[in-house]
């Protein structure tokens, strides 16, 4: 707000709902790209141990 008062930023420069949506979608894509390989690798190593222990 101080920056807006000093004229360095105007209200149009602030984050709007659309930006928050884009950011949320970006984080979701990143989270999926993290979670899918993790599930495959960690799940695969767990399964390997279970199958070979039997």
């Amino acid at each position, binding site marked *: 707000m101080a920056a807006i008062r000093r004229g360095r930023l105007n209200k*149009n420069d602030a984050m709007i709902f659309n930006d928050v949506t*884009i950011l949320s979608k*970006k984080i979701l894509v*990143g989270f999926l*790209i993290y979670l899918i*390989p993790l599930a495959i*690798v960690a799940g695969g190593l767990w399964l390997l141990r279970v199958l070979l*222990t039997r």
Partner: protein
Amino acid sequence: MPIDKTLVRKIAKDISVSLLLYVLPVAVLFAYFALKGETPWVNNTHAPAAVNVPAALKFLAPVFKNIQSWGFIVIALVLGAAEFALGLYDNKWTKSERTIDIVCFLAPKLLLPPVTAYFSLKLLPWLLPGLANQFSWVPFWAGFFIIAVADDLTQYWYHRLHHQLPFLWRFHRTHHSAPYMGMAMASRQNFIYTLFFSQIYLTATLVYLGLGFPALFVTVIKSFITLSAHSGIPWDKPFYKYRVLHPVAWVLERLISTPATHQSHHADTVDGVGNYKGNFGNMFFLWDVIFKTGIITRKYPKTFGIKFYKQEEWYAQFLWPIFKSKKPGSELAANGPEVGDEIQKNSI
């Protein structure tokens, strides 16, 4: 901006293939233990995975740790100085570009470690209690293979989707806005792009699960390759020039990113040498070969950057969408157009 349906189908198909690629190292390890009849997890004490590795690797570990902590900063500075001495930046490193490059080089080194440390030391033990070093029985060679594929294929997808999904492009645009190649722009990224790098957290989780020792070696080798691929010095040229080295070149350019293939990705044209809509590989170029997203020409583009560049302010390039550009018509301005990584038609 709508996404082409053919592209969506191609992405879906390539993701299916990727799932198999992630499984591959684990399947090889399964076959290895099944054939040898070994079960190293029985009576495993969950000790760190550095216990059963060759002495040479243990000797190298502190060297790699130092390279990882401060070595790359020195290497980047020395290589950068060499690039300047060779005049590779011409007069393109203007005050505005300099500011962006320096902020992007320094700020993540200060801001990112607390985030990753919190994730590794606090969040993971809380989310996965009792699972620390759970997979420390994985042999070094297999851990290396697992991390190399998991880390780099994940980064390939993170990178590729930031090009192919228009709503993600502006987070990656800063890396492509530099009109030159070299150490100066190697770390140039929007901070939000860097902060949510999926492969950082994936590798950190695998380290927590017991693959820390192989991860150290993979991350250092990967950093060497990605840094050298961004270099303005075409170190790969002799491999294409001398006939005796051609077989090595053939393997090298398909396996890892080189200045020729990565400079092509940073070109501002799609003209047979430039291929900014492909060549997404970071450490391994192999992913581009498998998914047919790469071109290998053994040539270097003449110009780099993006055609929609408006020399946006450093704060907008570093922290969009938190800060916006004041440049009229800029993609990074408030209500700026979402053009994706398209180039203006008159530039083709």
